[in-house]
């Protein structure tokens, strides 16, 4: 509703709704949220669609909404996501998140989401010959930076500052990942209005354009053997987005990437083109990923501090970059002069969706 009102629109102006929602069935006993959401906001009877791609769902919803508007089929839609996964508690939460692994061939061995990233951490350490102690230190730096900025995010979940020692002394979740390497279960929602260029210019003097989109998928964890610890889907998806926008990674001013686990940030930063493979952790060691660094990453606090309400996560990344461009985030985490932003969302260990946003003024 905030998205509609702050765009100076009425609910009746919205022609269609696209929503990412993953676990509403389990957390709220509520399916078909798209239809009820449309009715709640007063956009009665409009076509409404739900997207499920685990944690990438919100970005998938926005990508699809973009394609419909870009095609001319609609000129004013709303897209976003919602989930309330903390309501399930850790046991059911872990069970439902593990549904995004291969339920027949991989879940029986005990594979969970953090488990997959624990395995990637060991593999990464061995493959790039980075001693585990150094890699763990780099990973701790990722979490510390997320909290450093996330503590200022009024909409964030874990708003406390943490230290490297806090991370390295936290409980072991799945080796070598400790509690503070992991994002929390979260409740949240986010939405954006997507309008045709002509309409957008009438609504605001600060329009933000989507100039590039990408999406790709993968099979079960073991079937990604040719690429791990790299995630092939991300490389394909972000290339689509960069090519469409006609830019490269060096032109991105701000990135919100999918830091479900600290190692995930390092792996993502490499595939997005911000560092050579095996050198992603140096972005945090050298301050390149910091607020005045070469490529500021996760100034919202990321999934780690801001939170990870899975279906909403991608939409919240978009909202935060739009606010950064408009200069309306809290001053402690405001990046100067953001013209181009990149979002990166990962569902399970295999669906990736990327969006490139461009300041329109």
């Amino acid at each position, binding site marked *: 509703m905030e998205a509609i009102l702050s765009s100076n629109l009425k609910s009746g102006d919205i022609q269609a709704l696209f929503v990412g929602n993953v676990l509403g069935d389990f957390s709220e006993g509520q399916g078909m949220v798209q239809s009820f959401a449309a009715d709640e906001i007063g956009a009665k009877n409009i076509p409404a669609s739900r997207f499920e791609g685990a944690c990438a769902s919100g970005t998938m919803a926005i990508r699809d909404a973009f394609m419909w508007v870009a095609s001319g089929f609609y000129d004013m839609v709303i897209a976003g996501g919602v989930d309330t996964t903390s309501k399930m508690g*850790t*046991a*059911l939460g*872990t*069970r439902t998140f*593990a*549904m995004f692994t*291969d*339920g*027949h*061939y*991989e879940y*029986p*061995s*005990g*594979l*969970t989401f*953090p*488990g997959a990233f*624990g*395995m*990637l*951490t*060991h*593999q990464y*350490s*061995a493959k790039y010959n980075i001693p*585990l102690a150094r890699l763990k230190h780099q990973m701790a730096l990722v979490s510390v930076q997320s909290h450093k900025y996330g503590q200022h995010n009024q909409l964030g979940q874990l708003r406390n500052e943490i230290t490297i020692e806090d991370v390295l002394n936290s*409980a*072991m*979740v*799945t*080796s*070598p*990942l400790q509690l503070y390497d992991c994002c929390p279960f979260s409740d949240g929602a986010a939405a954006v209005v997507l309008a045709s260029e002509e309409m957008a210019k009438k609504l605001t003097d600060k329009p933000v354009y989507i100039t590039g989109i990408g999406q790709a998928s993968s*099979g*079960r*964890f*073991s*079937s990604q*053997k040719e690429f791990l610890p790299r995630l092939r889907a991300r490389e394909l998806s972000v290339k689509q987005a960069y090519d469409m926008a006609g830019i490269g990674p060096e032109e991105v001013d701000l990135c919100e990437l999918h830091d479900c686990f600290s190692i995930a940030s390092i792996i993502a930063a490499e595939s997005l083109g911000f560092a050579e493979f095996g050198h992603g952790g140096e972005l945090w060691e050298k301050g390149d990923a910091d607020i005045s660094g070469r490529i500021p990453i996760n100034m919202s606090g990321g999934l780690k501090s801001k939170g990870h309400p899975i279906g909403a996560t991608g939409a919240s990344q978009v909202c935060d970059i739009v606010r950064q461009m408009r200069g309306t985030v809290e001053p402690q985490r405001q990046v100067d002069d953001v013209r181009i932003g990149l979002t990166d969302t990962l569902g399970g260990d295999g669906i990736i969706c990327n969006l490139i946003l461009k300041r329109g003024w």
Partner: protein
Amino acid sequence: MKPFEYKLTFKDFNASLRKNKLLALTCGSCGKHTCPPKLVCHECGSTDLESTALSGKGKIVTFTVSYVTALGREGEAPVLITMVELEEGPWILGNLVGIDPDRATMEALMGKPVRLARARMLPPDQYSGGKELKGGFARPTFSLD
């Protein structure tokens, strides 16, 4: 045209693994193996596939010890999960037994040879796809060679 069928169903793969025999699909086009099975060859996409048995030997690609387990599996923690590169090429996710999970370090495990051990089982839960799974899931289980 007769309906397209799986050459190696989950049901058959699971029943065989339960008897400690690891099945795969061998490709008539490229000669490579797909395991666990898929509808087509993992390597070349061909549907010219035949079910065959693998040696069960391989080496550890990576591992994790999970202390947080899912609903209904609380008693399993800590569980040692490993990715094994099989001698014949495919990677398969499974468990490693015969070592104390708390002593599982990179030095002790990475790259080490393993072989198929007696399959551990996982009873189905309410999200496991109904009654098809009588007796539960056989888990690919390995021990250090």
